[in-house]
C-alpha cells in the first residue's frame, strides 16, 4: 500500500483551471477571428500570427531568463490570449516590427514587470495597444477598408468613429449620412481594427463565455447600457451626435466591453463593483469619443478604470451572511 496522504478539507476540486478559462476565452474569440480573416484576409493573418507568437516568445523568455523562473507559465494560455487581443486591436496593415514592439510592451511592461499572471494592474493587451497608439499615431489610425484582403498595400478609408468625430467637431449632422448602416456595422462590413469590426461575432463569443460561466453579464451589459443611454441623450440634445445604435456598434466598444474589460485580473471582484466599473467605463468612453482628441475612447476608459479597481474592491464588499436582518 502507498503512504496515506493527509491534507485539510476540501478533498475534491471542481476541476476548473486557469487553462480552461483562458482557452475558453480563446474559443469565444474564434467567431471574431474568422470574421477578421474574412474581411481582412492576409493582413489579419500576418498581424495576428506576429502578435501571438511574439507575445508567447516574450512571456517565455522574460520568465525564463530575466525572472529566472523554473516553472514556466507559457502554456496557461494567458499570453496567447493577450496576443490575440492585441492583434484584434491593430489595423491589418501595421508593419510587423511595430507589432513586435507592441507585444514587448504588452507582455514586458504590462504584465511581467508586475510579476506575471495575476499581478498586473492594467490589461496587458491594452497597455501595448495604447503605447502603439501614442507612439505611432498615423500608422495606428489609418485603417484599411473592410474587404481589402492583401497585407501590404491595403486601401485605407474613414472609419465610422472618424466620421462621428468629424460630425461633432464641425457641428455638421449631415456628415453622419456617410456612416454605414447599422446592419453593416453589426456584421462587420466597415473599416477598423481587425478584430473589432464585427459586433455580431463578438456578441456570440460573449454569450458563449457567459454560458460557460467564464464571465458574468455584469460588466458587458453595464458598459453597453451606459454607452447606449448616454449616446441617446446626446443624440437627442443635438443631431450632430450619432444615433446610439451606431455608437454601440462602432469601433472597439463591443470588443472592449466583452473581452477587455472583463479580464479577470484587472476587473473588480463583486457584482456590485463590476457594475460600477462598467458604468464608469461606459461614461468615460462616451466622453472621450465625443470631446476627446482621439476618435476611440474605449482603451483609455478601460485603462483608467483598471487603476480604480483596487479602490472599487475596497468599497464594494460582498454582503455578509446575516447582514440582512431576519
Amino acid at each position, binding site marked *: 500500500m502507498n*503512504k*496515506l*496522504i*493527509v*491534507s*485539510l478539507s476540501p478533498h475534491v476540486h471542481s476541476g476548473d483551471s486557469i487553462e480552461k478559462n483562458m482557452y475558453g476565452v480563446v474559443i469565444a474569440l474564434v467567431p471574431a477571428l474568422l470574421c477578421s480573416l474574412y474581411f481582412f484576409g492576409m493582413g489579419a493573418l500576418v498581424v495576428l500570427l506576429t502578435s501571438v507568437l511574439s507575445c508567447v516568445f516574450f512571456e517565455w523568455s522574460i520568465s525564463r531568463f530575466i525572472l529566472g523562473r523554473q516553472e514556466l507559465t507559457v502554456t496557461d494560455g494567458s499570453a496567447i490570449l493577450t496576443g490575440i487581443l492585441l492583434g484584434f486591436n491593430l489595423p491589418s496593415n501595421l508593419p510587423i516590427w511595430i507589432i513586435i514592439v507592441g507585444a514587448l510592451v504588452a507582455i514586458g511592461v504590462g504584465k511581467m514587470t508586475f510579476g506575471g499572471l495575476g499581478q498586473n494592474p492594467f490589461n496587458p493587451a491594452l497597455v501595448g495597444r495604447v503605447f502603439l497608439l501614442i507612439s505611432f499615431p498615423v500608422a495606428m489610425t489609418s485603417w484599411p477598408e473592410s474587404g481589402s484582403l492583401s497585407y501590404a498595400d491595403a486601401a485605407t478609408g474613414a472609419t465610422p468613429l472618424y466620421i462621428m468625430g468629424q460630425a461633432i467637431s464641425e457641428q455638421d449632422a449631415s456628415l453622419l449620412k456617410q456612416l454605414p448602416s447599422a446592419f453593416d456595422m453589426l456584421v462587420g462590413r466597415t473599416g477598423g481594427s481587425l478584430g473589432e469590426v464585427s459586433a455580431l461575432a463578438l456578441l456570440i463569443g460573449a454569450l458563449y463565455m457567459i454560458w460557460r460561466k467564464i464571465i458574468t453579464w455584469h460588466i458587458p451589459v453595464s458598459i453597453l447600457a451606459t454607452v447606449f443611454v448616454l449616446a441617446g441623450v446626446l443624440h437627442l440634445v443635438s443631431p450632430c451626435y450619432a444615433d446610439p445604435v451606431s455608437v454601440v456598434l462602432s469601433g472597439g466598444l463591443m470588443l472592449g466591453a466583452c473581452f477587455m474589460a472583463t479580464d479577470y485580473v484587472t476587473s473588480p471582484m463583486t457584482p456590485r463593483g463590476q457594475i460600477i466599473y462598467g458604468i464608469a467605463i461606459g461614461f468615460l468612453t462616451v466622453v472621450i469619443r465625443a470631446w476627446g482628441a482621439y476618435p476611440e475612447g474605449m482603451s483609455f476608459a478601460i485603462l483608467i478604470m483598471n487603476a480604480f479597481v483596487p479602490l472599487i474592491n475596497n468599497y464594494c464588499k460582498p454582503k455578509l451572511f446575516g447582514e440582512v436582518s431576519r
Partner: protein
Amino acid sequence: MNVILIAVIVLGLVGLISAVVLFVASKKFAVYEDPRIKEVGEVLPQANCGGCGYPGCAGFAAACVKAAESGSLSDLNCAPGGQKVMEQVAGILGLQASAAAPKVAVVRCQGTCDVRPHGVEFDGAHSCRIQNMTGMGETQCLYGCLGEGDCEHACLFGAIKVNPVTRIAEVDESLCTGCGACAKTCPRGIIELRPQGPKGRKVVVLCNNKDKGALATKECKASCIGCGKCVKTCEKFEAITLGVNLAHIDPDKCKMCLKCVDACPRGAIKAFNFPPRPPKKEAPAVAPAASVAPATEVKQEKKEAEA
C-alpha cells in the same frame, strides 16, 4: 516678456503663501517628542524584529524612555543588540543596564527521517501551522519538528533553516540574535530560547515528546522517554527536572559536567560547542557506556512487552 513676468509673480506668490502656511503649521501643531527617544533609537540595531515585544525599534525606544521615568530597565531587553546595546541605552538614560544573559534559539527535536519515519504524506500549503492542524502531521510524533519551515520564514536574520535531508530546523548560532520570532511561530513550541552559555556551551534535552515511554519509543528513536536517569545523575546539582514524561535542564543550575549526556539511554541530551573528547571516550567512557547499554535494552524489552 509679459508672460514670463506673470509666471514668475504667480509662482513666487504661491511659494510665499505655502511657506507661511507651513511655518504657522509647524509652530502651531508641533509635537514634543523626548529627544532621548531618537538617541536611543540610534543605538538600536534597527532590525525591527519585534523580539522585544514592541512594534519595531522605534516602539522599543519609546518604551525604554518611558521605563526610565520609573527608574528601571529590567523588563526591557533588545535581543539582537545584546548586552552591549542595552548598556548604551542605559547610558543615554542615565541608568544601569540589568544583566541579561544573551540568548539563542535551540530546536528541541532530533527526529530526523531515519529515526522518525514519515508514515503518511502531507499534501497542502507548506506551513507548519497548517500541517499541525491536520493533527499528527507526517510522523507519529505529536511533538516533533514538522519541517515545513515556518521558523525559517519568521527569522529576519537567516539564522534558522530547515535541513532538507533531515527535515529538522537547524539554528546557526553565529547569526541567531535570540529575538524569539521562531519560538513564537512554531506551532509545537519546540524552539526554546536558552542562555548562550560560556563560549556558547550548553547542555540541552533535544526532545519535546510528552508521551509515555513505550509510546515515545515507538514514535521516534531519538525521543526522551522520561526514564529519569539523567535526573538521578544530576542529584548533586538538581539541574534536571522531569516534567510530563520529559526531562528539562535548567540552564542556571547546569554545571556542564556532561554526565547526563552519557547517562541518557536515548541520546536525547546533547552538548553544544564542547570540544571533542577523544581521550575520555577511549578508556573510561566505554566502560560505563557498556554497562548502561544492556540495562536500557532490558528496560526497553520490558516496556515493549508491556505495550
